[in-house]
């Protein structure tokens, strides 16, 4: 099996990438190129490996570890292969990007970062492929720990360490629930091998327990509201190419886990499973995008937008589960393909955006959008790529984001056919409306992100002195931008991969997911022929442009004069421009109940009230779940701990007293008085 050899070689390369930094640590340049080239090779092999699996079918590999749990191995089936493809594509792009981006870190522990970067890729590959409970949990925790160190890499800033701490604790909690779910299954199946878990004999209640544990466990990693609080802290703290990987791929490990459980291990469940996932999904999407919109730290903004996209993915999965439990295999197939399509898309455009943000960060050393501006002239290519990413995230045609969003809409449209009655109809209508709201907010959010960052005049010195990113970084971004366009114009290619991924899964039928025509996106759901054709839409848009050109040039050539905007007689400067904070003001006002933005104050920097005033506008946001959920819990725990500590009061008499009491109590209990 070629795929098997490719797999082993890939693991070897990543491991070499980890080890190499120890030998090259003397020379930063060398470290950079060796480590990231190995990562690049590994990622390419991941792509090849996935392709071979798709061509030749499932492969099994035995891993070289020796633990008292029997043989531990990997098995790459189509689902794994799909995610392997994702990590390959994104990993390759980020690795190329890393060549240029690492120059920032030549004096900031580059060897550590490069080594961890390889380890991160390695662990994620293992998470996607291993087929043994213990191996999965080990890989999962290693992935979390490695990313934790990457988040903490710039520990000179206290906030990063704080973020890393919150991240590791949250993800550890999640892991515990995952472990519980796995162990319940493994005990039922009396084996820890994934192939056996499917037939696990567990009672109905236990299955529900397992489902809830899975949802909590993987939901924590995916950033599902209200377990998302670590995400907007951790992702901005990491180096940008790592943030790209974290958002693009690491979150998808959670989605992978959910698919494993819901499609493979648990089988078809009751309807409320899917409904619960749907509700959580829409909440996640709406909350995420709202917070993204009011954010003006560009990387935090992207992180929150990841939360939103996870919500959209969850919508697909939830709908799929509902369809499965209602014996609607075709619709279930459509739903899951919508979810997985969005998984792939989000991997592409979110990594792209993070890389763009990284390029901006490297050029200007600020993440605050309100400090930027005018970069489209300074860094034209980055601007184009970031624009592509933004349009894709905003789910606008003709890019890939629109396709998956469209599929999700279709899925939700068919929901009333299984959730009969008024409630079902209203429920799905509300879901669609809220998803529409989410889409519109995303558009607004990224209009701000791009507009304020790249357009108008620079709002600060560092923005004014920005220079274009090095070519390697541009190549990295370019790859993903190209893929965004391709997957937008030619969805059939992706859909055929998805139909391979989802084939021979019980309760799912993806025949006719791929339409008859290469250009038409017309999933035959047997309910309607509601199909669209991206090519046709492109043609229409082009013809529209043609008409516009015609009208434009119908009266000969246009004379263009350059003149400053009229600002009542003074030369317009960057202080007159709109900021992201101002842009989101009206939304903040309307959604006050969710976005507790408070003391929006104007601060006068220098006391003189008459002339030369310098004004700052501060906005603080009280995050709903943090203030309502996490802070109280934290406080109570600490209080209880302080109280409990009284038992170690320091008096030896008391200590001996404990022994006496225990003795007497146990004596009495055992003798059964």
């Amino acid at each position, binding site marked *: 099996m070629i795929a098997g050899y490719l797999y082993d070689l890939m693991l070897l390369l990543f491991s070499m990438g980890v080890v190499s930094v120890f030998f090259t640590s003397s020379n930063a340049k060398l470290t950079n190129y060796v480590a990231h080239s190995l990562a690049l090779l590994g990622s390419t092999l991941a792509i090849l490996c996935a392709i071979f699996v798709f061509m030749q079918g499932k492969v099994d590999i035995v891993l070289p570890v020796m633990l008292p749990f029997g043989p531990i191995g990997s098995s790459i089936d189509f689902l794994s292969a799909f995610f392997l493809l994702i990590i390959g594509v994104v990993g390759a792009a980020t690795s190329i990007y890393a060549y240029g981006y690492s120059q920032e870190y030549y004096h900031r522990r580059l060897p550590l970062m490069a080594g961890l970067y390889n380890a991160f890729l390695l662990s994620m590959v293992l998470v996607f492929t291993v087929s043994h409970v213990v191996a999965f949990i080990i890989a999962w925790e290693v992935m979390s720990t490695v990313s934790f160190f990457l988040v903490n890499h710039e520990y000179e800033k206290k906030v990063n360490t704080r973020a890393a701490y919150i991240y590791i604790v949250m993800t550890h909690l999640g892991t515990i629930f995952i472990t519980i779910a796995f162990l319940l299954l493994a005990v039922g199946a009396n084996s820890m091998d994934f192939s056996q878990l499917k037939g696990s004999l567990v009672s109905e209640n236990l299955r529900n327990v397992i489902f809830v544990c899975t949802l909590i466990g993987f939901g924590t990693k995916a950033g599902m509201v209200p377990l998302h609080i670590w995400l907007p802290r951790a992702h901005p703290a990491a180096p940008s190419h790592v943030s790209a990987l974290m958002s693009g791929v690491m979150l998808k490990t959670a989605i992978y886990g959910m698919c494993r459980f819901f499609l493979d291990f648990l089988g078809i469940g009751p309807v409320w499973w899917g409904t619960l996932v749907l509700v959580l999904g829409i909440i996640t999407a709406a909350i995420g995008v709202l917070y993204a919109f009011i954010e003006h730290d560009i990387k935090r903004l992207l992180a929150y937008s990841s939360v939103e996209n996870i919500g959209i993915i969850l919508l697909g999965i939830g709908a799929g589960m509902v369809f499965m439990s209602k014996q609607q295999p075709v619709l279930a197939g459509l739903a899951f393909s919508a979810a997985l399509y969005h998984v792939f898309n989000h991997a592409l455009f979110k990594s792209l955006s993070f890389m763009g943000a990284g390029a901006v960060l490297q050029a200007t050393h600020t993440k605050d959008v309100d400090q930027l501006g005018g970069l489209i002239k300074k860094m034209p290519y980055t601007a184009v790529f970031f624009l592509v990413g933004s349009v894709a995230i905003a789910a606008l045609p003709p890019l890939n984001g629109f396709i998956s969003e469209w599929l999700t809409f279709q899925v939700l449209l068919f929901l009333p056919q299984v959730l009969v009655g008024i409630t079902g109809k209203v429920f799905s209508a509300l879901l669609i409306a809220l998803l529409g709201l989410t889409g519109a907010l995303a558009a607004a959010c990224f209009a701000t992100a791009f507009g304020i960052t790249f357009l108008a005049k620079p709002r600060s010195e560092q923005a004014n002195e920005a220079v274009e990113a090095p070519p390697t970084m541009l190549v990295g971004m370019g790859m993903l931008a190209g893929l965004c366009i391709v997957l937008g114009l030619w969805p059939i290619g992706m859909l055929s991969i998805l139909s391979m991924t989802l084939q021979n899964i019980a309760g799912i039928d993806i025949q006719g997911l791929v339409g008859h025509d290469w250009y038409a996106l017309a999933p035959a759901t047997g309910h309607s022929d509601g199909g669209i054709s991206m090519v046709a839409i492109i043609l229409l848009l082009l013809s529209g442009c043609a008409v516009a050109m015609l009208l434009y040039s119908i009266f000969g050539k246009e004379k263009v004069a350059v003149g400053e905007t009229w600002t009542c007689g003074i030369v317009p400067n960057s202080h007159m421009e709109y900021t992201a904070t101002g842009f989101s003001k009206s939304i903040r006002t309307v959604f006050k109940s969710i976005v507790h933005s408070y003391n929006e104050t104007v601060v006068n920097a220098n006391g003189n009230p008459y002339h030369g005033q310098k004004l700052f506008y501060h906005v603080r946001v009280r995050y709903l779940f943090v203030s309502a959920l996490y802070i109280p819990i934290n406080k109570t725990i600490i209080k209880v701990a302080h109280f409990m*500590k009284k038992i*170690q*009061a*320091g*008096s*030896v*008499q*008391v200590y*001996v*007293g404990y*022994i*006496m009491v225990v*003795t*007497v109590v146990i*004596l*009495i209990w*055992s*003798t*059964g*008085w």
Partner: protein
Amino acid sequence: MNILTILLLFTTLLLTRASELKTAVRIIRVQSLMLAMACTAVGMETGEVQIYVAAVLTIIIKAGFLPYVLLNIVNTLKHEREDHPILNISYSSLVACIAIVLSYGLIDQALPGAGSRDALATAVAMTLIGLLLIITRRQAVMQIMGMITMENGIYLVGLSVAKGFPLIIELGVFFDVLVAVMVLSILTSRLKLSGISTDTSILKKLKG
């Protein structure tokens, strides 16, 4: 034999009433002597040599050497008495009585119709009272004596129900008791030397 156990109990009760350290040490001495007598009694029953040896050891170490050491320490401590025990004298003897009742009850409950019920009960009672002393007394020396009482009680069990241990274990136990008390006494004197009072209830620096 039974008379001895009763007397042992009596001495133990007496110990709970002692507030002067010297008297307490003397009581311990008496107690150990009685233990030795009990030993010989058992020896006469079974006629095994090792038990006589044990008796002799008891007299030498527990009735002879340890009280001597303790007295020395007490002498070095100037007018340190158990003035304000955590549980005052009469209450603690009350609790001691309760302990005796409790232990009898326990033995009846746990080992109904055991051969040497009194001895067992006495032993358990002595152990509990020893604990009680450690808990309710502030003076390091008093706590040491509480421990010796416990040990005596346990030894009594071995004696009464199992007719004494094999010699090697016997020796080991004796050795350990000896060393334990020595260690504690050294620590006490160190406490004294390093200017801290031997009132152990103020040793509360390490907590949390």
